[in-house]
């Protein structure tokens, strides 16, 4: 046998080639689209490449076959976003990555609050000042890839002291007749004491394979209170890499809820850094995975300063051949005395062909802290099922009732009450 030279292209090269095509298409005009930043990110991506299969944080998630598909960044498309019924939000719609003013309902936003497209020239300065400041791409190839393609995106700016009563909802819809690469970018800047709820959702309006590689960076100003929700619902051939980077300033409160309802391979990289004292952080997540769906939640709670509180609570329901991963790290740095940090991961595995890999981790370098973590993975409680059936409730209905209440534990804690119905609806649909 003779070794043949390896002529297959690296998947990275395909993405670089796609970048060049995309670049030629979109930068032939007026706006500059952060060329330096993007070039730098591309170089970084191209040099580092995707994480190797054997790397620790990708041990249980094989995204190689997804990345080897030939994707194109989609052109402008037309599709009606379905949105989320009953949310009552200010809505910003992006179709194939481009802001669609006609579908957005931002006109009645209070005057000094900004929800805008990156292409809005009046916001260029603000975007330039903050973009890629909280989501560093040096060690995150997926963030680097997203940054290289930054073209349009959503900017949310909340001025000091403002309290918004309705949520802001950013929708990214995609439609294409080819395998599409969608790279949503969202930048949320809240000034001192601002209060708001931000919901992000993605909609896939095509049966073609879609890779969504999103980056959301959030700065939570001093004493600000921000709730951030991420809803992922995809077709069986949608894959999702969602990167969320949060920077909290003094005495701020931040809630993150990540909800995953399907997709081929889903990887959430959520990292929160309270970089000042007296911050509070809630990090919640829920997924329901069926078929051969694979959902990986990779989280980092990075306690850098003293006197902060964090509570992480993730749950998952795995049916059929699904796999789930929870890789949750709570890092308490040496300075972060008097930290209270809690972490819990609970999963229900319904079949013996579904698997859950749970790796909760505490890494503590300060000596005066209160931290705990725990993980349980199991089946539905047999005694509970029997009790329900002994009251006349059919087996499948009893099962659904128990699963919905398992999920409800996370849903009920979502601060935006208008979202409870939406989330229950999704869970019920998946458990049918």
């Amino acid at each position, binding site marked *: 046998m003779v070794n043949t030279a390896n002529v297959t292209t690296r998947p990275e090269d395909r993405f670089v080639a796609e970048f060049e095509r995309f670049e030629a298409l979109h930068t032939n005009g007026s706006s500059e689209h952060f060329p330096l930043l993007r070039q730098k990110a591309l170089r970084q991506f191209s040099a580092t490449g995707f994480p190797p299969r054997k790397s620790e944080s990708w041990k249980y998630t094989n995204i190689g076959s997804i990345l080897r598909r030939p994707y194109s960044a989609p052109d402008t498309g037309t599709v009606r976003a379905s949105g989320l019924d009953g949310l009552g939000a200010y809505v910003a719609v992006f179709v194939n990555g481009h802001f669609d003013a006609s579908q957005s309902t931002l006109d009645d936003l209070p005057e000094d609050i900004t929800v805008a497209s990156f292409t809005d020239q009046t916001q260029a300065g603000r975007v330039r000042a903050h973009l890629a400041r909280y989501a560093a791409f040096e060690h995150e190839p997926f963030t680097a890839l997203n940054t290289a393609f930054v073209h349009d995106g959503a900017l949310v700016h909340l001025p000091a002291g403002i309290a918004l009563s309705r949520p802001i909802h950013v929708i990214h819809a995609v439609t294409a007749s080819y395998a599409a690469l969608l790279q949503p970018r969202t930048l949320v800047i809240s000034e001192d004491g601002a209060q708001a709820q931000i919901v992000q959702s993605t909609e896939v309006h095509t049966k073609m394979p879609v890779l969504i590689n999103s980056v959301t960076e959030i700065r939570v100003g001093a004493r600000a209170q921000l709730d951030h929700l991420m809803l992922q619902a995809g077709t069986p051939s949608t894959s999702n890499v969602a990167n969320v980077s949060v920077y909290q300033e003094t005495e701020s409160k931040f809630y993150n809820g990540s909800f995953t309802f399907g997709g081929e391979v889903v990887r959430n990289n959520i990292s929160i850094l309270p970089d000042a004292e007296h911050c509070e952080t809630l990090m919640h997540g829920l997924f329901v995975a069926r078929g051969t769906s694979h959902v990986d939640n990779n989280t980092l709670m990075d306690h850098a300063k003293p006197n902060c509180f964090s509570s992480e609570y993730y749950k998952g329901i795995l049916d059929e051949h699904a796999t789930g991963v929870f890789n949750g790290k709570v890092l308490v740095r040496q300075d972060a005395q008097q930290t209270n940090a809690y972490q819990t991961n609970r999963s229900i595995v319904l079949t013996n062909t579904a698997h859950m890999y749970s790796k909760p981790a505490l890494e503590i370098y300060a000596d005066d802290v209160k931290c705990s973590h725990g993980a349980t993975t199991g089946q539905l409680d047999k005694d509970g099922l029997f*009790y*329900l*059936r*002994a009251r006349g*409730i059919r087996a499948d*209905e009893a099962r659904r009732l128990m699963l919905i209440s398992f999920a*409800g*534990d996370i849903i009920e804690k979502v601060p935006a009450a208008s979202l409870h119905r939406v989330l229950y609806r999704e869970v019920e649909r998946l458990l049918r």
Partner: protein
Amino acid sequence: MTPVLEIKGLKTSVEGMLILKGVDLVVNTGEVHAIMGPNGSGKSTLAAVLAGREEYEVERGTVLYQGANLLEMEVDERARKGVFLAFQYPVELPGVSMMNFLKQAVNALREHRGQDPLSAAGLLRMAKEKAKLIGLDPRLKQRSVNEGFSGGEKKRNEIFQLAMLEPVLAVLDETDSGLDIDALRSVADGVNQLRTTSRAFVIITHYQRLLNYIVPDFVHVMVDGRIVRSGGKELALDLEEKGYDWVRYDAAA
């Protein structure tokens, strides 16, 4: 009098161990039967077999419910057809709200009987009325099923469900244990009000006291997987006085 329940030569095992070693029992509509007997004699096992617990293997014998083979019916089917078990250890269901639970159970039953589902308001009205009858704290209806309920509250909740579901055959497994004197009284009052000519009760208990309030038509004593003695309500008094050795001795003779 028509038999609701006819048990003949019932032998069941769990994990290869024979627990019920030949039980015979006939219960007619309108009757109240009490089953007493020492710990571990198989009383709960009998109740569990009637409700359809799968861990219990039926080795031999037959159980007819309203003339049909009960052992062939699914757990939930039995309940819809009117078999109710008040659990010795009610299960906590965190996150399952009482009202949703009641709605599902009541409507499953109504569907079986060919009735329209009850409206939310109708259900609430019914729940209020029955809670009052049983003396169940109405606030418990706002909570998850049995979650964090006290021992007594759990037992009362079982009888509350009995009242809601109006079964044909109700099996009460030690509903009196863990109840304070007042609770015992009000649970017994509740049961007595639910006592009709079209409903039968099998009441498993260790204490004569409950039977002062709910006066049974028959008392049976179970020892080591068999009913070794049956009699009228005075049998319970004899037992209280003489202890189980008396019937044990009898059974051996």
